[in-house]
């Protein structure tokens, strides 16, 4: 796969979902006879046309029946297939939760479930189409690996890494078309290893998904004010990179977690659960939806209500630092 700057720009236009299904999946299918791609009536929206025309036998339309899709995926996996199954994040992670628990977590079937449009990108469709609790539901299931992509290139890397590992994975894809670019060039992605995007000495901002780009913007704004921030991309929510967290706890005065997700049960909670077992660790600020549903509008409007834009994150951190 040619990870050139031009391709990175093109993939960002396709968004995380378009890159995952339109670019990564046909690539993965090339040398895998046992690959299957399932969707619950979302092939068109997910940009699967290229995959379907190249590999019609590897594609299965399940219709708008997410629970059935998870069971079918498990059955295929029991017979040796490597299965990818997708629909909107809320429909796959929440509506199908018990099926995922029984068939993927308990029986450890080799199924990768991809929840797209996570967060609030389905802005005007309203709360029913937002996924702001999916990480919490997926994270508590034993045996599941939980990933959350920062940009289109990372979505591609996640697809490939997930295909290369055995066992169930939840991949959270956020945003729609025109996903902001975090990675301008190729980089090393490894499941379970968070990525340091910027080194600083005062505050550590741990972000996931679309919040990574916002966190970088906040860090730039704070630098102008003399506040030095480390920015980390927590692309793997589970297993958590505890080794790196220990270093971060040692070297920073304040920890800020940012996610396009409820502050209950998400990435911030995962970090806090681990931090609670340690002594002399920094205080933590949880940014995300504060256990409330926002009012519908544009994605930006929704973020603004809870302070998730780059400038708002910077403003909040400045206040916390000078408390």
């Amino acid at each position, binding site marked *: 796969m040619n990870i050139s700057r031009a391709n990175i720009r093109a993939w960002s236009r396709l968004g995380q979902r378009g890159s995952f299904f339109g670019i990564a999946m046909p690539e993965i299918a090339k040398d895998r006879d046992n690959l299957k791609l399932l969707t619950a009536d979302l092939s068109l929206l997910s940009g699967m046309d290229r995959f379907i025309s190249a590999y019609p036998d590897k594609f299965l339309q399940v219709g708008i*029946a997410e629970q059935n*899709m998870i069971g079918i995926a498990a059955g295929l996996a029991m017979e040796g297939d490597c299965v990818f199954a997708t629909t909107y994040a809320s429909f796959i992670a929440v509506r199908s939760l018990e099926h995922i628990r029984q068939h993927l977590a308990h029986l450890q079937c080799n199924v990768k479930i991809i929840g797209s449009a996570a967060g609030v990108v389905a802005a005007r469709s309203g709360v029913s189409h937002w996924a702001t609790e999916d990480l919490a539901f997926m994270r508590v299931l034993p045996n599941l690996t939980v990933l959350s992509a920062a940009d289109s290139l990372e979505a591609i890397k996640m697809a490939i890494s997930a295909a290369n590992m055995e066992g169930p994975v939840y991949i959270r894809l956020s945003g729609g078309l025109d996903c902001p670019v975090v990675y301008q060039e190729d980089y090393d992605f490894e499941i379970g290893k968070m990525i340091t995007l910027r080194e600083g000495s005062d505050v550590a901002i741990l972000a996931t998904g679309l919040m990574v780009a916002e966190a970088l913007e906040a860090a730039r704004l704070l630098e102008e004010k003399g506040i030095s921030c480390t920015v980390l991309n927590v692309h793997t929510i589970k297993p958590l990179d505890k080794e790196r967290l220990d270093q971060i706890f040692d070297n920073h005065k304040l920890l800020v977690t940012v996610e396009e997700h409820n502050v209950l049960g998400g990435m911030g909670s995962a970090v806090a659960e681990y931090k609670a077992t340690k002594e002399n660790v920094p205080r933590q600020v949880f940014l995300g939806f504060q256990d409330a549903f926002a009012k519908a509008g544009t994605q930006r409007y929704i973020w603004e209500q809870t302070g998730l834009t780059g400038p708002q994150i910077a403003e909040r951190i400045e206040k916390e630092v000078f408390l």
Partner: protein
Amino acid sequence: MSEMVSDKHRTIDCSAQKAEELREMAKRMRLDALDMALSTGQKGSHLGGSLSCIEILAVLYGEVLRIDPKWPQWEERDRFIPSKNHCTLAHFPALAEAGYIDKSELVEFTKDGGRMTGYPRNLEIGLEYSGGSLGMAISVGIGIALASREQGRSNRVYVMMGDGELNEGCIWEAFMSAYQYRLDNLVVIIDRNHLSYDGDTEEVMALESLEDKMKAFNWHTICCNGHDTGDLLRAFSAIKEGVPNIIIADTVKGKGVSFIENRREWHHSRISQEQYEQARQEVLAAD
């Protein structure tokens, strides 16, 4: 008319002699089920819904399923997926009859950490699926059937479901999709015992006409007496190509023991020593 019925995959012996043999097998399994129930003591067990599917399982394990207990990972084996997974008092005796486990092990089925405890998946002893939450297994059966067909295998997937669990909505998603994919290697058996935990299925949530519903879903629908081994053999030999098949086996919950039959409180209950003795006598005396 020939007593041996063949399709492209297999031959089913529908003779009176085979039916009688399976009736004897069912009788032994019923006695095993009572032993298992007694062994649970105060914990109790699912006797009612197990006694209703004894003949179904006897016919499957005694004649229909193409399996080899000495080769449990055989790719071409038929898969039996118990969706009503609480039928262990019938299923484990069938596995013992088939040779997957020793009869002496049956009473250990609730032992702490045991290899049969808690409805595990364990291919070595013929347990293809771990479930129990109702309505979920048929989708897995569909996945297995799709993969089997794609890999060019001639095995079949048999999913046994209770009638109560047909209340679950995702079952109907699965019924639709099995026809959509024309899965003629999938056979569903409904243990139509007319009782769920709270009572008569038609009062709890009416299912009738189940036969019409399944025909409307384009499944080849076969109805039979689920306690008549001969009728069950004929049902399994009437399976059609091109579409998924369903056998609606009319049964009695608690079949074979007068004080358990059609009594909802026996969905899950304790059996006393005295009741056990009486039940055993009734099973032994039955023709």
